Structure formats: C-alpha cells, structure tokens
C-alpha cells in the first residue's frame, strides 16, 4: 500500500507539516514568494484551535514569536529575503534568551527589494549570523516538497531540544512547486519545559531575558550558548552523497540548485563521466566532514553551484582545505541554472583535465 499522497505546493506543505508537528502559533506578514504559507495558516490554525496573526510588520511578527516561544508553545514565523532581514534582531534576542522557534526564509532575488524569483543569496546572512552577537543557529535546507515536510517536523524537535531558533531555508521555486507528499505520523512531546513562562502560581518566578549587565555573568551565559553550539556542530550536520563512490568530480549544491545539479550529474554519468553530487542538508552546521573525506579519497575537483555569487563555496573551500581544486558556478538575481548549463560546466572542467 502506498501512503496517502496529496498534491501540495511547498509553502502549503510546510504549513501543514508545522501544524502536524504541534505548531499552534503563527505570526507573519505577506511577502512573495512565501505568501501561500501565511494564507494556509490563516485558514488552518482556527481549525486546530491555534492562533494565526498577521502582524503589522516583520519586526512585530518576530517579536510576537519571541513572546509566544517564551511560554513554551511551538511557534513559527515566515518570510522571504527582505522580511528575513527585518527579523534578525528578534532572532538574536531569542538566541540570547534560549527560546525555541522555527523561522522560515523562502529566498528571493536581492539585494534590496530585488525581485520575486528564486534565489540563494541569503546564505551568509542565515549561516554566518545576520543579527548581532556571538550566535549560531541550525539551518535546514530541503530540496523537495516531501523533504520540506520531513525537515519542518525535525526543525521543531531540534529547536526544542537545544532551546534555540532553527532556520528553515528554501527558495521561491521550492515554495511554489507542487509535488505529491505524505505526512508521517508525528510524535509530539509534552515534555515539561521547566523554563517556560506559564504563570508563577505556587512556584518561584522564572525570568526570560537576553539582558545581563554584569559582564562576568554575560560571559558565563555565552559559554553556555557556545557549548550548545558545539554540541550542534558535533551532532547535527546532515548531508546526502549521490553517485560519489568513484567520482573524479563532485558537484556541491543545496536546495533547488542541488536538485537541478542532480539531473546534470545523471546526464554526465550517462556520458561516462565520473561525477557525483554532495548535497548539504544542514547549511549550519556545515557538513564539511564528508567533503574532507571525499577529497582525501581522491576526488580531484569540486564544482560548487549556487543561485548566488558564491557564498557556500567559502565553506566548501574550508572543508577541502587545498586537497582538491574548488570551482564555482552561479546564477544571480533570480535566475535559475538549467541542468544543461551545469552539465556544460562539468564537461568543461573534466575536459580541461584530459
């Protein structure tokens, strides 16, 4: 028996997955190309006894998220690039306050207002910390609608486990593409959150804040956060290797770019070229371990492909650390590479070595 499949756009599937994961509070503000998500939440939240609130701005939405998260409920906000910029301050405050939540960025062309076409040019902002302070957050980057469902559910679990916001990263194409999906049964935990603000009746009061005037205490607090980030780096790196076994050249790409690159890799294999694909599923922690191993095993070249001017490629180079050559191919401003373009790059690089 095949599981019950239904056709959903990425943005809708993300919303449904969040609800299945127990998310009952959504605060957002419309922006293309993620508006189907707040629209979906506006319709679904009342059906499950949840709260949908269209805030007056992205700033308001992210601070409503902070308030909800402080009470221990599962909560989410979403936006696209310009709106994600506006949420940076709130993200920093939530990390400082050790609050779990999920923040979605369905990226579009930039900088500035840019356009409404798909892009991956917010990698630095998401991965290196667009807000202030010494912080890190897990960033999950699905490449298909079903994976978007699975990683949405995982995002809520990771956020709760580490008491830290988790970024769910896609682009306009993933948000707008419709594919058959099924929803796995979700085990929602009712773990007692002994830090949550639930009313201090018959117990000592709890305080949630990111303010600490005493620098010794703030340094100690930062050490606690750094220990969490180290644990995340140790345990949460995720990636997929595809046809890498005997590869001479490995394409590195995430999200939509990876899906397109995979078609190019298959075409290259059909032509007898030994090519594989390395797809980071977490952008932070960056899964460099597998890349290092591939370079040590004899992969001679890596081709990093992004819908940006080359952001993740810096992390690829750090992982490869000079053991192999790293080339880059990117499209900018909302342009999407075709499998043919990537195949052309592969052929050029491999031909150049002959």
């Amino acid at each position, binding site marked *: 028996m095949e599981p019950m499949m239904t056709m959903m*756009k990425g943005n809708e599937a993300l919303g449904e997955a969040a609800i299945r994961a127990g998310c009952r509070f959504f605060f957002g503000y419309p922006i293309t190309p993620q508006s189907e998500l707040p629209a979906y939440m506006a319709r679904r939240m009342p059906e499950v006894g949840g709260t949908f609130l269209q805030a007056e701005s992205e700033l308001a939405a992210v601070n409503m998220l902070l308030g909800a998260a402080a009470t221990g409920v599962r909560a989410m906000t979403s936006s696209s690039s310009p709106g994600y910029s506006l949420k940076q301050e709130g993200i920093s405050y939530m990390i400082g306050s050790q609050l779990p939540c999920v923040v979605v960025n369905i990226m579009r062309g930039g900088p500035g207002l840019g356009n*409404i076409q798909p892009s991956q040019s917010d990698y630095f902002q998401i991965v290196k910390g667009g807000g202030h302070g010494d912080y890190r957050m897990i960033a999950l980057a699905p490449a298909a609608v079903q994976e978007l469902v699975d990683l949405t559910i995982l995002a809520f679990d990771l956020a709760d486990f580490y008491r830290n916001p988790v970024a769910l990263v896609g682009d306009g194409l993933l948000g707008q593409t*419709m594919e058959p999906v099924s929803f796995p049964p979700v085990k929602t935990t009712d773990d007692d959150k002994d830090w949550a603000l639930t009313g201090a009746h018959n117990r000592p009061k709890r305080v949630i804040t990111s303010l600490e005037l005493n620098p010794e205490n703030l340094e100690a607090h930062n050490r606690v956060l750094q220990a969490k980030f180290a644990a995340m780096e140790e345990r949460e790196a995720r990636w997929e290797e595809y046809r890498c076994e005997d590869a001479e050249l490995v394409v590195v790409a995430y999200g939509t770019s990876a899906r397109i690159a995979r078609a190019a890799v298959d075409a290259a294999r059909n032509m007898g070229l030994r090519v594989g694909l390395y797809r980071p599923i977490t952008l932070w922690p960056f899964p460099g371990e597998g890349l290092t191993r591939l370079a040590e095993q004899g992969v001679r070249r890596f081709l990093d492909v992004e819908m940006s001017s080359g952001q993740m490629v810096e992390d690829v180079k750090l992982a490869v650390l000079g053991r192999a050559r790293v080339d880059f191919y990117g499209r900018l401003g909302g342009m999407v590479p075709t499998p043919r373009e990537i195949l052309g790059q592969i052929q050029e690089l491999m031909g150049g070595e002959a």
Partner: protein
Amino acid sequence: MKAARTLLLGHFGSGKTEVAIFLALSLCAGQKRPMLLDLDFITPYYRSRDVADELAAAGVEVVRPAGELWRSDLPVVAARAVQALTAYDGPVVADVGGGEGARVLGSMRLSPGTYEALMVVNPYRSGTESPEQVVGYARWLEEIGRIRLTGLVNNANLGPLTRPEHVLEGLAQVEEAARRLNLPVRWTAVRADLADALPGLDLLPLTLRMRPPWEAPASALL
C-alpha cells in the same frame, strides 16, 4: 467548443494553465487567432505568460500586463484582456488565477450565456479532495467571479506518480461533484503519455509546460 470564450477557474495548482494552453493551441487551426488571457496575479510562478514566446510562435497571442509588469504579482489586468473578453470575435481562453484570483472576473460582470466557465479539478489536490470540498469551492468561485460554471474538467493527477487508475478513481470523485452541482464533466486532462492507457474517455492529452527546471527532458541536455 460551444462558446468562443472559455474561462478556466479552480483551486491554485489545479492545472488550469496546462488546460488553458492546450485549449488555446487546439484553436489555432481556425480563421481567427486565439487569444490566451493570463489573468493570474495570484502566484508569480508557473504562469502561461512564462511561455508566451513559444505560444506566439504556434499562433496563440498571450495577453499579459505590458512592459516589465508581467513579471510582477501586482493586481494588473491588461486593458487588452478586458477588450478580448467583451469585444473580440475570435476564440478567447482565459487562464484565471487560482482561488481568490477569480475576483478579477467579478470586476468584469460578464453576461451569462456569453462564455463557457470550466472549473479544473484535481481531486488529489489538498483543498479539493472530496466532492463536498469541490462543491463548496465551485459555489465560492461563482460568487466571487460573478459567473455561472458550465462544467468541470477532471485533472486527477499525482504529478510524476500518476497511474491510469489514479485518473479513473479521480474521475469518479469529480463526476460525483459534478452530479451534485448539476454540471457536466467536459473532459479528463491527462499527461499525453498516459492517454493510450485510458481508452473511451474524452481526453485532453497534455504536453506539460509548467515544469520545474530539474525536470528538463534528457533531449534538452544533449
């Protein structure tokens, strides 16, 4: 086709654009050039305007907002689209935006009897998965579009996973919805490669154009 003006409505993601393109192309053999009105400003992706050049080469004029505005998702309706629906004497196919997008028709106040209005239904699409949901959706579209539906189009599919039995099981669902609405099911739309496995049905065999870049046919790679 009974009426020269065919309006395609439905849930977003129901397959309106693929059906609209098929119908417009099928009208190219006539004396007057068919016009395909892209009235979709609901979503900025997967719209008939994206393949306007290809359709123009085949003899279909795609009407979309002028200048760079066609790339936006702003509520812009080209004057030429209104003109086409009210005054053009050649065939017109209107690809209306999903769901709320039907409001654009509401603003035009079209007279009953001057058009055929078809709701495209994919019974595997979240939101139109039961006859009850389809009936509710159809009534809502009629209300906000100020039109009367004249038929349904079955577009039962699970994307690349679609098998002939999915189409047939879906058709039964759409027929039940049509019975409750007292409307005919005009056609069943299927991916062209499934057509031979579905004899005896009134089929629209579709060559899909609204495909993501990773589904480029192998031929495009060589």
